[in-house]
C-alpha cells in the first residue's frame, strides 16, 4: 500500500533534484537536456560577481528573518488572546477576519497599499498625523521600506498561524488548567506555565520549518511594492533574478541561484533542528 506513495515521492521529490544540473549548464531551450553545454561553475561566478549582489543577499536575509520573527510572535500572541475570548461567535468571526487577507493577491493589495500608505492622503498617515506624527513615506523611504514589507506581510499572513496555534491550544488537557487553578495560578500564570509550554513543540516545529525560508523574502510582495527609490534596501534575490530573466531568459543563472538558496536553506534547517533538539529536546525523527 505504501508503494504508490513512495513512487510518487520519488518521482516528484527526488528525480527533480537532477534538474539542479541545469545550474552547471549554458542552458539553451532549442537543444534537448542532454545536448546542453556544461560550463562548470560559470553560472555561480556570474551571479556572485553581479555588482551589488552582496547588498541584495543581505536585503533578502534581513527581510526574511524579520518576517520569520514577526510571523512567529504575532500569531502566538493573537492565539493566546483569542483563546481567552469566551464569546464563541465573536472568537470565530475574528479568527475568520484575520484569516481573510491571506487570500488576497499581492497584485491587488499593492494597489490598495500605495493608497492607504500614502504620506499625503493615506489613512495610515492621517491617523498618525492625528497623534502629531509627521507623515511617513512607508513605500518610498529606503530606511523604512523593509519594515513596511515585514509589517504588511505579517498583517496578511498572521491569521493563518493564529489558526494553527489555536488548534494546538485546544488539544491541551483541561485537567492541567484545573491543577494550576488549585495551585492558585491566575490567568496570566496559567498562560505562562501551562499554555506556552504546551505550545512549545508547535512553535519550535514551525520555526524550524520557517528557517528554511531564510532566503525567501517573498517575490510577489516585493515585486509589487518596490520602486527604484528603495532598491538599496528592498531589492531581493528573487527580484534580481526576475529582472535578469525578463531581459533574457537565462535558465542557467536562475537554476544556480535556486541551487544556492537550497543549499543555504538545507544547512539552516539542519542547524535549526539540532538546536531545537539541544534546547527543547524536540525531535521530528
Amino acid at each position, binding site marked *: 500500500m505504501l508503494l504508490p506513495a513512495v513512487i510518487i515521492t520519488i*518521482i*516528484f521529490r527526488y*528525480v*527533480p533534484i*537532477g*534538474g539542479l544540473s*541545469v545550474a552547471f549548464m549554458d*542552458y*539553451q*531551450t*532549442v*537543444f*534537448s*537536456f*542532454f*545536448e*546542453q553545454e556544461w560550463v562548470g561553475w560559470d553560472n555561480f561566478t*556570474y551571479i556572485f560577481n*553581479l*555588482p*551589488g549582489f552582496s547588498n541584495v543577499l543581505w536585503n533578502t536575509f534581513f527581510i526574511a528573518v524579520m518576517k520569520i520573527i514577526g510571523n512567529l510572535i504575532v500569531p502566538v500572541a493573537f492565539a493566546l488572546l483569542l483563546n481567552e475570548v469566551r464569546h464563541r461567535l465573536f472568537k470565530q468571526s475574528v479568527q475568520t477576519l484575520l484569516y481573510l487577507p491571506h487570500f488576497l493577491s499581492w497584485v491587488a493589495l499593492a*494597489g490598495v497599499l*500605495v493608497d492607504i500608505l*500614502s*504620506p*499625503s492622503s493615506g489613512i495610515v498617515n492621517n491617523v498618525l498625523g492625528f497623534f502629531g506624527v509627521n507623515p511617513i*513615506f512607508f*513605500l*518610498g523611504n529606503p530606511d523604512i521600506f523593509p519594515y513596511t514589507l515585514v509589517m504588511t506581510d505579517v498583517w496578511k499572513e498572521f491569521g493563518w498561524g493564529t489558526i494553527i496555534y489555536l488548534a494546538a491550544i485546544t488539544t491541551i488537557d483541561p485537567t492541567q488548567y484545573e491543577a494550576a487553578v488549585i495551585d492558585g495560578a491566575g490567568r496570566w500564570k496559567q498562560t505562562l506555565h501551562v499554555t506556552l509550554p504546551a505550545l512549545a513543540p508547535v512553535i519550535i516545529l514551525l520555526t524550524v520549518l520557517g528557517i528554511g525560508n531564510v532566503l525567501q523574502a517573498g517575490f510577489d510582495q516585493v515585486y509589487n511594492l518596490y*520602486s*527604484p*527609490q528603495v*532598491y*538599496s534596501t528592498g*531589492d531581493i534575490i528573487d527580484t*534580481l533574478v526576475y*529582472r*535578469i530573466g*525578463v*531581459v*533574457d*531568459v*537565462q*535558465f542557467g543563472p536562475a*537554476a544556480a541561484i535556486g541551487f544556492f538558496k537550497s543549499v543555504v536553506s538545507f544547512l539552516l534547517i539542519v542547524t535549526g533542528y539540532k538546536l531545537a533538539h539541544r534546547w527543547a529536546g524536540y525531535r521530528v525523527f
Partner: protein
Amino acid sequence: MVLRKGKGKQAALIVSLVLIMLTIAACGNDTNGKEQPSGNDSATTTRPENDGPLAKYEPAIELTAMKNLYGDERYLPGDDLNNNVWTRAYAEELGIKVNYKWAVAGEGFQQKVTMSIASNDLPDIMTLPAKDYFTLAKAGKLADLTPYFDKYASDTLKSTLNADGGKQMKTAYVDGKLYGIPQTGGSDATADMIWIRQDWLENLNLSVPETLDDVIEIAMAFRNDDPDKNGVKDTFGIGFQKDLNSGTGSYEGFFAAYHAYGKAWVRGEDGKITYGALKPGMKDALAKLREMFAEDLIDVEFGVKDWKKVGEDIAAGKIGLFYGREGLPWMSAKDAIVNNPKAEWISVPIVSSDGKPAKPATNVTMERYFAVRADVQYPEALIKIINLFQDRINNPKTTMDMLSKFGVDPVSGINFAAYAFGGLDPSEDKPNMYFQQINAVIEGKETVDNIHPEAVRYYNTIKNYMDKGMDKGADPLGWNYYKFLGPESSWKIISHYRENNLFERSAWFGLPTKTMSQKGATLDKLQEETFIKILTGSAPVSDYDSFVENWKKLGGNQITEEVNEWYNSTFEN
C-alpha cells in the same frame, strides 16, 4: 509516448528523461522526437499553375499553427478559433486548411512557445517571439523563405513591410537569409508630446508653452495658483511616475529638451550610436527635475506610483500638465473629461531648453516573427496567408464591406482581424494617413469617396461631433476621435514632428545583445536608482558623473560596441 519494442535501455532513458522534464518544465526530448505528419499530408497536391501571391492549392493542404491571443476574443455564434471568417477564407480562397494546435493569451504564450520548442513539437506555421525566432533560425529549424519571398509576397505586403524603408524587415534576416516575416508596426506613436489642461491655462491667463521655461512656469502656476479654482491647493505642477519608459507621465519628452534620452539609442552624425542617457544634456535635465521636485512641483510620491496610479491623479483632476503619448484621449485624459466635462485637454509639441529644436524619441520593438518549420512542403503558404490579410485590410482598394467582414464588425463590435494568422500593420503608422485624409476632407480639399474606408468611419464620428457643437458630455466617443485624429489632435502633433523631421528614432531595436542580457538588469538598476536619487535630492547631482563612469565600466561600453555592430551588420551591407 509510444515506446518501441526491443529498446529497453532507450525506454528506461526516455522514462527518466520524461521525469526530468516534469521538473524543469523546459527541456526536451529531441532524440526521440514524435513522428508527426509534416503538415502537408495530401501528397497529390502540387503547386498551382500560375502560382502567385493568392493562388489556390488543389486539393487543399493542411497546416498546423499556433497563435497568441489578446484574451478578449469573442466569436459569432457557431464560430471558434478553428472556424471563423479567416480560417474559412484561407480554405476557400487559398486552399489552406489552418488547424490551430494551441492558442494562448498573455504571458502564457511565451511559456507555451518554450515548451513547444523544448519538446520539439512545433506546428507548421508559427508566431514566434523574437528571441525564439533567431534561436530556431540559427539552429536550422525554420524554412528558408528567401527563394519564395519575391515571388509570393503581394505588392500590398511588400509596401506594408517597406513603409519605413524596410528597416524592420531587415532585422528578420539571419546570415543573409530570410526565415520569417516580422510583425511590423509603426513607431511614431511612441513619441512624447505635452498634455495640458486648456481650461486651467485660461483660468490663470497662461499661454501654450514654447520653451522649457514656459513649461516650468506653467507647472509653478498649476501647483500654487489654484488652477481648478476650488480654493484648495490640491493640484500638482507636473505629472511624472516611477518608470523611465512610460506612455503617461513620461521622462523622455522632458529629457529631449536637453537633447538627451532615458532609454533611446541615438545615432550621431558620425554614424556612431550612443546611449541617450550618456548625452551631455542629461546632467542638466536631472538637475532641473531635482529643482522642480525641491520646489514641490512634482508629487512627492511619484517614485512609488506607476502610470496607472498617475493616470488616476490625472482623471481626478489633480494633474493638468504632463508628458505623454498619442493615446491619452482614450486613457486617463478621457477619464478626466468623464469625471468633469469642463476639463479641456490640448496636446502640444515638446519644447526645448535652448534654441535647438527638441526631438522626441521613438522606438519600435520587434516582438514577433511569423515563420515556417523547416520540413514543411510548401513554405510559401505562410506568405500567402499573410497576403490575404494585407489584401483584405491594408489594401488601398479595400471596401467598407470587406473591413466589416474581416476587420471590426459594426454590428457585434467583434474585431475579426484578431483571429487572422500573421496580421501585420504597415511599419509606418496608419493614423498618419488617416489624419491627413480626414483633415483634408474637413478642410474641403478632398472628398470622402477618395479616402480609405477606415478613415471615413473616423471622419463621420468627428464630423458628427463638430456639427453638434462639440459637446464632450453628450458624445465622449466623438471627443476621443476629435482629440485623436481631428483638427486639434495628438496625431496633428505627430504630423508636425514628421513634417519638420523631428523624430529621434532609437537606432537600436534588435534582440538584446549578449552583454545586454548579462548586464542589462544591473545597468538598468544603476540608472534608475541614480536618477531617482538625484531627482528626490537624496544624492548630489555629481553622482551622475560616477553613474556614467560605472555604466561604461560595468558593461555599457561593450553593449555600445555590440549595438553598433548590430546596426552595421543589419543595415550597412
